[in-house]
């Protein structure tokens, strides 16, 4: 809260560069993990973070602080991450038709179960994928997710429940 107060003052005072520096220092790590939870690969999360901060810098003078700085930045990262996934789905498929994912990311050394889980997630509708990833990988509280995605907590819980059911069935088939 204290941060927000200072940041608002800097925003109103037009100290955009100093404010941007503060935002990078304070939020880059959190935003990276948010991006990684959605895209799963390190190189993609890195791209998303870069693009997001370019957008943050450009939009900073126009930001009216109606939501918190964090919510605003998380929304930007979410949009960028989803845009990257869409682009990769369209153009980034591998020779075998599969989408690159954590399973072939050199910065992933999780067990086979996670890799299998990721493949099952890919087959979900976009909204369910997002809710499941934010909840499962990032352990984001529903209230926070509700604020971020402009969706009621009830709808998010239902979405997560459906996603979990579908994934369980998929994994059983694999």
């Amino acid at each position, binding site marked *: 809260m204290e941060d927000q107060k200072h940041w608002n003052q800097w925003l109103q005072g037009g100290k*955009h*560069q100093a404010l*941007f*520096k503060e935002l*990078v*220092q304070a939020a*880059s*790590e959190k935003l*990276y*993990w948010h991006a*990684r*939870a959605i895209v*799963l690969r*390190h190189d993609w999360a*890195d791209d998303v*973070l*870069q693009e997001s*901060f*370019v957008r943050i*810098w*450009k939009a900073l003078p126009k930001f009216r602080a109606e939501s918190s700085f964090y919510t605003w930045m998380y929304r930007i990262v979410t949009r960028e991450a989803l845009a990257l996934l869409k682009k990769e789905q369209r153009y980034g498929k591998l020779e075998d038709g599969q989408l690159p994912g*954590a399973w072939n990311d050199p*910065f*992933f*050394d*999780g*067990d086979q179960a*996670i890799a299998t889980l990721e493949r099952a997630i890919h087959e979900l509708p976009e909204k369910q994928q997002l809710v499941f990833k934010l909840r499962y*990988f*990032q352990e984001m509280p529903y209230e926070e997710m509700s604020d971020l995605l402009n969706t009621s907590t009830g709808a998010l819980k239902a979405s997560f429940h459906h996603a979990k059911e579908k994934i369980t069935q998929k994994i059983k088939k694999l």
Partner: protein
Amino acid sequence: MESKGFKIPEDYFHHKNKELLAISEEKSRPKLRSLSFGVIAAAASMILALFLWPQDQVTPITNLPTENLSAYLIEQEELFTHYPQHRLELYSLGDSLNLEKLDSNLILDYLDESLYLDTYESFTL
């Protein structure tokens, strides 16, 4: 997420933050700098062109080709329209009157008269 096997390169955030901070430094450079460079370059080119552009040179009349002179004179035919009428009459009469047989006094009188007319015209013009 790290507990689930998602890793990052060593010192990733240290390097990444430097890269991210560079966004604001790069994007906040005044556009005026590039603009003024462009303006200066354009101005310099114009000044250079002004000095190097071929100036109007005066060519002595003796160096002009005959065809150019003829063409110029034809274009300036308006001059002939202002040629004194009495001289034109004299020239036109010349052939038919056979001037060689004319009395020299008559010729002198005529020339005196013409001289008077020329002088008169020069005062009245």
